[in-house]
């Protein structure tokens, strides 16, 4: 009985976690698709020697960073979702939220900073990047602890 009740209560408690996992999965795939598309755009700008991209070193660097971080963080979201499924991790909700927020905001920060920027200085959008980075770091650390310690489903 205890086991049955425990299982019931645990299942009920994990339902939101499963939802967060699904949402991270969706966001991860969308992120990969969107930022890969952006990468394709950069290839096109490079291929057609577009001066506003090619001759603007600051913009070029920031766009590259946006593309790289957007894609990579999308993959990290997918990894988070799969690791939850595979290893039954149960990181706190804050970890999911921070990871997802950071993964969304950081590349957008780079992108905005590259679109409107100053001479050799990124635009104001760059200020989105450090807090987003901290969110991602926090999420990653929380996931690491969940994987290392007791925060697993069914514990």
């Amino acid at each position, binding site marked *: 009985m205890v086991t049955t009740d425990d299982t019931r209560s645990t299942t009920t408690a994990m339902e939101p976690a499963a939802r967060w996992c699904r949402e991270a999965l969706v966001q991860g795939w969308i992120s990969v698709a969107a930022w890969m598309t952006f990468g394709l755009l950069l290839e096109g700008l490079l291929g057609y020697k577009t001066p506003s991209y090619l001759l603007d070193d600051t913009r070029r660097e920031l766009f590259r960073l946006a593309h790289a971080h957007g894609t990579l963080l999308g993959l990290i979201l997918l990894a988070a979702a799969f690791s939850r499924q595979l290893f039954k991790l149960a990181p706190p909700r804050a*970890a999911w939220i921070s990871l997802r927020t950071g993964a969304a905001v950081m590349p957008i920060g780079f992108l905005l900073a590259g679109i409107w920027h*100053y*001479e050799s*200085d990124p635009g104001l959008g760059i200020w989105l990047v450090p807090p987003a980075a901290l969110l991602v770091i*926090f999420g990653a650390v*929380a996931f690491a*602890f969940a994987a290392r310690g007791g*925060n697993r489903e069914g514990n």
Partner: protein
Amino acid sequence: MNLVVDSDYQRSQFYQAYLLSVVREKQILLTTSLSLTGGALLLVASIVLLARPEYQGTRAGFADENYLKSGDCRSCHADHYASWARTFHSRMTQEATPANVQGDFTRNNSFEYLGVKARMEKRADGFFMILNLPDGNIQTAKIDRIVGSRRIEQYLTKQPNQYTRLPLAYDLVNHRWMSLNGSFFYPDGDNYFQHVAQWDSNCVFCHNVKAQPHLDFGNKKFATEVSELGIACGVCHGPGAAHAESALSPLTRTAWHLQPGEDKQIVDPLKLSSERSLMICGHYHGQRIPEPMDRIQSILSQGDPFNAGDDLAQFYRPIDRDSHIGPVAFASRFWPNGSPRLTAYEYQGILRSKCFRNGETGKRINCLTCHIMHGGDPRGQITDENRTDQPCLACHRQFGQTKALVAHTGHAAASAGSRCYNCHMPRVVYGIMAFHPTHDITVPAPQLTANSGVPNACNQCHLDRSVNWAITEARRIWPEQFAQAQLSPDDQFNLPEGPRALFAGDALTRALAADLMSGNGPTKPDPGWASPFLVEAFADKYPIVRFFAANGLTRPGVPWKGDKPDYLAAPEVRETMLRRWRDLTTVCPANVREQATSWSLKFQKPRRETDLEVGE
């Protein structure tokens, strides 16, 4: 029952304990994660702050204290660095490295002048100038630095006590070696080393950032330092250490971006009053003497005290026609009316201009009205638009209308006579193998040519008309302004002004006339008319006059083919060339050739010569 109650109680206790442990575990996890994130942030911040560069206090105690080098500015101002790097300013003075030296040290690398055979060599350990003197002696000088990168490349050799400018330079336009005597206004003479000069007390001040000769007066030894070779960021923006130090903080930079008017602890010439902005350029483009004169001691020992944004008059006085240092007078560097006749006096020219004098304080015309330091054509640091009437029309808007323009100029709207520069900034200033527009913006005054020998704008186009004709026309077109202008009773001013000036003026006037007759002025005279005069001008005893004459004889479009006569060749070689060119131009009208011969002889004797060097 008890058991059941007991069991329920225990179960409840168990659940509570379980939930508490889960909550505690989550709290621990959250706290640990947050702590580690904070730790990571602290680690990153510490590394960034430890790794940040320090600028304040560089060169403390020297004249260039807190000055940065252009490389320091590059990391933040990549665009400005790039637009500066493409200018001739950036390559004004350079170390003599294979990447910098443009002179031909390998193929056309010999040059003979005044009996000295020079050979220029590129060796494994550098560049050398070897002089075989007529007495058999051989002098070898290693070239350590070069000055100039656009028209001529001059060479400096490092000696124990100073850097010395060598007697030969490389003409970057005509791709040949030359004696510096060929660029100044001196006759051929016999002193091969006449223009060997000391760099440390002279050139260094206008071709580098913050010159500090460190002269030991007792031993007469220089230990010259500069903040940076060439004309770099510090010249216009002053010491940049405080600015760079502040700019290291992204918060400060963001504040600067959001509030562009905020003090950035750096000089921006565009934000200074027009007078102070002008002084920055005037410090380099306005030959000057220390004020008071005994300040020269501290300048030669400690260095140039002026920084961008300072009041130049606190330290220096611009040289004018009446200036002199002991027995050295400067009158020959100015036309008789006081207008500069050499480059590096643009500051004096602007100060004389009505556009400057009548302007509103703080908003007067200055160099940046027309010139641009980070854009445009590096040749002149000017945009294509500013080569037109546009800068003048910014104030004199009424002449943007064709009718008003034609009424003002008395010339067709599209003609050279309706271009502002041609009349108000005629090319009467010499600098480094070329003539340039004066920066003394004036109203044309043909009577000045007759009265005092100042070339006039009208006859820069109308070379085949006399000065008296120009005066008559000026009185007809602008009766009010020229009501007092009198025709000259001197018959020479009834002759075409181009050829008259070519033979009757002093060396600079003759060189200017040769340049105009060669078609480098606002209009291009018929070569059939101009060439016989240029041939006779090639007989001039001043190499610089011959230089311009030779260019005119072989300019594109002349109807004959002849080798360009060498203006620095030995006298007997030049005589042969002259005869050949007289033969070539026999196709020109006979009366013109006769005029050329007779006028050249007629004016040669009575003319007064004024010898002068440039920039010294």
